[in-house]
């Protein structure tokens, strides 16, 4: 049906119009204006993802290079919903901001700096940054989206459009879900173990002890070690025959673990190496956070009869939550992307794929197998995860109270 794109756009225009008209009514603005703005936003949101692929998932391929199945249509609907969110949510946010712009309760105080008079100079100063960002971040991002809809090889210029097959084929790909599971398991372990250990160390290290500076330096230097070097060093420690870990384990408990050739143990080798490498960063931020915990709150809790553990559990940990949250996000990002170097040197993604994370998979697909389209599609999924995390971070940081800092 040739008019399907038109019908979809019409429907989303109406949805956008209705939603924004409702927001405008609640804010006491002109409902009609809201309807018009919402309609435009709804149409734009749909077209943002749909126009580049020409609504391909809602019509059969004229040249029959790909087939449209239910999964493709569902994926198309998800894209439309995401597109709508991308335009309607900021519009709603902007309307609310506009309604509060003169309300002193929400006014932001900003130091007004003495401003230089020039319309031309700031762009001269910004030009190098903006050009580099446009060429080396924006353009590749858009190109990744384009590649994800293509059958493309790294070593060939010829490409063919395959709609969203690169994405929807993953639904039946059990291997991909295995990789997702591995990534989540490794990330979760790195975050949980890393943060608990760092908080424990930081509670000891932040006090004005004798030699506190030396302790701190000795605790945080692994921040400067590269993930690749961490992989190499733990390749030595975890070596199944000559490694010191098994020497200790054998001496203490009489066991030997095939750290690098047992699929159950290999992820732990990666986790240990990554926690070791990222711990310094976490300790650093926890020390800073603990130094900012107001003591009067603890004194008040002490007067109310709370013991040391209760005070730590109910006063200090909640006060540290903004830092913990920040660290959770940075550690997840670290586990997703920066573990690549560690994994590449330590396990090479094996044995039998037990340490292949999403990032490692993208590398193997795109560079080793030269299958650009598939790799780009998986990059986009990673991209979506990062954007989700960033949005969560921004929203939460905006809401949480910054205690004592």
């Amino acid at each position, binding site marked *: 049906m040739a008019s399907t794109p038109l019908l979809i756009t019409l429907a989303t225009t109406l949805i956008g119009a209705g939603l924004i008209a409702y927001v405008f009514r609640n804010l006491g603005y002109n409902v009609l204006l809201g309807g018009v703005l919402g309609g435009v936003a709804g149409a734009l949101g749909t077209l943002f993802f749909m126009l580049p692929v020409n609504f391909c998932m809602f019509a059969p391929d004229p040249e029959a290079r790909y087939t449209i199945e239910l999964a493709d249509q569902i994926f198309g609907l998800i894209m439309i919903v995401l597109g709508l969110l991308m335009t309607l949510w900021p519009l709603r946010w902007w309307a609310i901001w506009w309604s509060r712009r003169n309300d002193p309760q929400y006014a932001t105080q900003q*130091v*007004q*700096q003495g401003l230089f008079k020039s319309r031309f100079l*700031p*762009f001269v*100063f*910004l030009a*190098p*940054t*903006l050009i580099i*960002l446009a060429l*080396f971040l*924006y353009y590749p991002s858009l190109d*990744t989206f384009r590649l994800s809809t293509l059958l493309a090889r790294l070593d060939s210029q010829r490409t063919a459009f395959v709609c969203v097959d690169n994405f929807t084929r993953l639904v039946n790909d059990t291997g991909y879900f295995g990789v997702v599971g591995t990534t989540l398991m490794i990330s979760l372990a790195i975050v949980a173990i890393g943060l608990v250990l760092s908080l424990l*160390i930081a509670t*000891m*290290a932040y*006090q*004005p*002890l004798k030699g506190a500076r030396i*302790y701190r*330096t*000795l*605790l945080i230097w692994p921040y*400067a*070690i*590269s*993930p690749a070097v961490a992989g*190499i*060093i733990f390749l*030595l420690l975890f070596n199944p025959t*000559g490694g010191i870990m098994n*020497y200790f384990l054998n001496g203490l408990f009489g066991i030997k673990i095939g750290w690098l050739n047992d699929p159950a143990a290999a992820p732990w080798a990666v986790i240990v190496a990554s926690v*070791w490498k990222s711990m*310094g960063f976490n300790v650093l931020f926890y020390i*800073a956070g603990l*130094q*900012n915990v*107001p*003591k*009067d709150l*603890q004194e*008040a809790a*002490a007067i109310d009869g709370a013991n*040391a553990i209760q005070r*730590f559990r109910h006063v200090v940990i909640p006060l540290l939550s903004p830092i913990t949250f920040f660290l959770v996000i940075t550690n997840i*990002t670290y586990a997703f*992307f920066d573990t*690549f170097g560690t994994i590449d*040197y330590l396990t090479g993604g094996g044995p039998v794929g037990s340490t292949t994370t999403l*990032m490692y998979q993208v*590398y193997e697909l*795109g*560079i080793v197998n030269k299958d*650009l389209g598939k790799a780009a599609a998986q*990059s986009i999924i990673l991209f979506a995860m990062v954007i989700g995390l*960033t949005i969560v971070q921004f929203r939460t940081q905006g809401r949480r*109270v910054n*205690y*004592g800092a």
Partner: protein
Amino acid sequence: MEREQVTPVAAPAQATRAAVYRAPRQRPLWLPQRWYAHIILWIACAVIGFPLFYAMLVATQSQAEVFAYRFLPGTSFADNWNIVINNRHLHTYMINSVFIALAVTAGKTVLSLLSGLAFVYFRFPGKWIVFGFVLITLMMPTEILILALFRFVNSLGWGSTFTALIVPFLASATGTFLFRQHFSNIPAELSEAAQLDGATPLQFLIQVLVPISWNTIGALAVIQFVYVWNMYIWPVLIMRREEYQVVQQGLATLIGGDAALVFGPMMLGAVIASIPPVLVFVLLQKQFMSGFALARDK
């Protein structure tokens, strides 16, 4: 509600303020005695230090000594050094890495200073759009774009050149924000005085802002130096010519096949490759911490 108000118990307001903003002087109430902290910190430092310490020992040992698990310096340092430097030319990779890390760090710092200056000390049309343009790049990790970037950089003819390792990393949203934040907190009197004196924006930047921003510059420099030095996946992709490879890549030449891992040279290489970033980090630690307002007790 900024912070729950608690009436200070038998303490003047002055003392309470000091306790909040400076490092605590007394033992916090929920902590055990200090000796406990010393023991735990000793263990923590030892455990954290052990992998590198052991790598340093192995760097001096022969393969037989490694398998004998000796916790003493070995006899093969000269042999290992010979393999790492004369045979595998690790110093070439090191020089490449130093050059690239310094170039990116310097370039990024200058570009971030300039964009921070533009955002704080100028009013221009579309400022918020430009700001948003920079802000959104925080959500684009290079790793995700690496395939498309690889195609683009190759199409520019930059494959296997230093340019490919330097230019794409010269712009930084993080740096721009860091300086924007830092400049916004500088009293406005400073820029007003500079303007009254007829200083141009660049003079103001170089003569006024830079001298009072060394901590922020140092902090950014540490992050960028360590980041560029430790970059791995991008050089592996783009840099095919061996004489231009960086040290993170060069270390792979010390690892032969899986069958014949010779640990001595491997660890010597790993240790040598870690010296510059660790040194930069330890030396600029104070700037790093105060640049992020992490150290309240300076």
